[in-house]
């Protein structure tokens, strides 16, 4: 393996960071299996015994709702012979976990409940009911913020709030937009596999330079149809395909108007608004409910939050104004799963849910008109990086112009396409890897 300290330079990165299986193993161990990783939302498991499988680094885990209403995160493994405890991706385990191999049972917190004929079978052995190694192993730490559950497999490290830092705005912005201050999951997960290293996804999410190149075909097609619809529409009616056509109408130079703000641990906020607040009747009805719930002043603050995307490094991308979230699960050095969820703003009118649902279906479904071209680029990037055609990936755009202030690094005004987020991610990556 290449010397880890030689992989990252301030404005460029060695290709092995993306393609070397040995590097992948180290990053799983030192990053994904150490830091806070998003498991899921509490509303995915409303009833006692409800569980979801979740992959943290290379570790298959279970997120389960216990009798005390507590959410537990456990290794999906029976301590007896190592049998996977739950084979289904999600479900309800009832009163207890029961292994399908020898019927050992466990409480929802992982503690051993019973072993068939334990007294006769284990008398005089090293094993008794209180042996800790006979319980299902728990994630070292589990914490929630506004219903979003995270786990860390390392005992030590910053607490969740410290780790999230300013990126915590992702969850505040999403929940605050609900008149009841909470969101609940829409029970469907689009799971998409990309044939590339996971880091390419994290870089692309806040890459303001790519949309008008990668997605222009969809942007133009949507813009054409949008114009046809607008001709027939009544006033105030036409939101139509703005979320798609923006990829063509916002030309490459205009993306510089966005701004990225980059934080310790690799997190990033892409500020800039997609213009999804027209003065149509649906938005007005929603505004009225929000003002009633929060008062005029607080309402203005909430809807004035100017965020397009928040990245929680290394594995989460949140689009809070549209209530969607993508969790990144690395499956191998060249294979990555993204799990894409949509949330409903509690107390908001149906029309507001439908607006963001349209984005979820059009942009994030497997028939996506947008993501398809990203997936193509990811695959092509990984192919190119696997070759001997060059050793480096360049992140030099606007390097040296970033503005450092109070521990954050912002792209300079009118430099929204700066590769500052990638530089910041790889800086955090290098720090983790040298630990």
């Amino acid at each position: 393996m290449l010397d880890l300290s030689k992989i990252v330079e301030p404005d460029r990165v060695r290709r092995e960071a993306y393609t070397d299986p040995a590097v992948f193993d180290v990053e799983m161990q030192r990053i994904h299996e150490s830091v806070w990783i998003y498991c899921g939302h509490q509303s995915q498991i409303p009833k006692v015994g409800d569980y979801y499988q979740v992959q943290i680094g290379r570790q298959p885990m279970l997120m389960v709702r216990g009798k005390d209403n507590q959410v537990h995160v456990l290794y999906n493994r029976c301590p007896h012979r190592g049998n996977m405890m739950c084979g289904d991706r999600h479900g309800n385990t009832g009163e207890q976990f029961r292994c399908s191999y020898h019927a050992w049972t466990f409480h929802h917190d992982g503690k051993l409940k019973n072993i068939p004929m334990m007294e006769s079978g284990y008398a005089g052995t090293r094993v008794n009911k209180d042996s800790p190694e006979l319980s299902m192993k728990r994630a070292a730490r589990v914490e929630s913020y506004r219903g979003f559950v995270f786990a860390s497999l390392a005992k030590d490290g910053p607490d969740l709030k410290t780790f999230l830092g300013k990126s915590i705005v992702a969850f505040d912005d999403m929940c605050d937009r609900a008149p009841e201050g909470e969101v609940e999951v829409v029970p469907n997960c689009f799971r998409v596999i990309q044939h590339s290293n996971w880091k390419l996804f994290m870089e692309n999410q806040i890459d303001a330079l790519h949309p008008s190149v990668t997605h222009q075909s969809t942007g133009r097609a949507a813009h054409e149809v949008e114009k046809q619809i607008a001709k027939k529409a009544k006033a105030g009616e036409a939101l139509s395909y703005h979320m798609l056509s923006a990829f063509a109408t916002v030309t490459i130079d205009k993306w510089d108007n966005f701004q990225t703000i980059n934080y310790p641990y690799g997190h990033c906020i892409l500020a800039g608004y997609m213009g999804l607040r027209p003065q149509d009747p649906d938005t007005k009805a929603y505004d009225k409910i929000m003002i009633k719930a929060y008062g005029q002043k607080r309402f203005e603050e909430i809807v004035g939050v100017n965020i397009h995307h928040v990245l929680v490094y290394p594995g989460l991308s949140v689009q809070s104004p549209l209530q969607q979230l993508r969790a990144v699960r690395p499956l191998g050095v060249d294979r990555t799963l993204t799990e894409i969820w949509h949330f409903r703003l509690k107390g908001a009118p149906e029309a507001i849910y439908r607006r963001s649902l349209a984005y979820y279906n059009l942009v994030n479904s497997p028939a996506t008109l947008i993501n398809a071209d990203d997936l193509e680029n990811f695959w092509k990037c990984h192919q190119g990086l696997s070759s001997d055609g060059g050793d480096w990936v360049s992140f030099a755009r606007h390097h040296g112009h970033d503005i450092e202030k109070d521990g954050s690094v912002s792209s300079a005004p009118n430099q929204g396409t700066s590769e500052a987020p990638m530089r910041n991610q790889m800086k955090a990556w290098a720090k983790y890897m040298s630990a």
Partner: protein
Amino acid sequence: MKAQYEVEQFLYKQSDLLDTKRWQDWIDLFAPDGIYWMPPAPEYKTWDGQPAIFAEDRNLMTVRMNRVLHPDAWSQRPLWETNHVVSNVAIQKESGKEVVVKSRFHMMELRRDDVRHFAGSYLHTLAKTKTGYKIKLQRVDMANAQAAYDYVLQVWV
């Protein structure tokens, strides 16, 4: 028997339009308010207001067609080949106005050097019009949708 024959011919024609990439002709098989719908799971009862892999009216179908035809639709270069087989055609309901028909499909796709298979069932609600059948709703339950999507669908199945 006449309806059975006509419906079968209609389904064969629809799949042939996909395999020969005659997108506009394919879209024109739909009624003005027709919907093409692929739910994420079999238990979905309606396309309206639900997560969906596809839930498209003719406007969105037109966006999709124009996008695929655009020279810079990167993931669509080179164009792929598909081959649909439609079978097990069974009329479930028939009235003077419409026919509900279920069928099974199997599609082979060649993309670059890779061959993939997609399979499932169609449930067509067809309106009887003066110019023949028009699709009011086409529900597509694709078995592959149960697994992680190790592919991206770009046109209709």
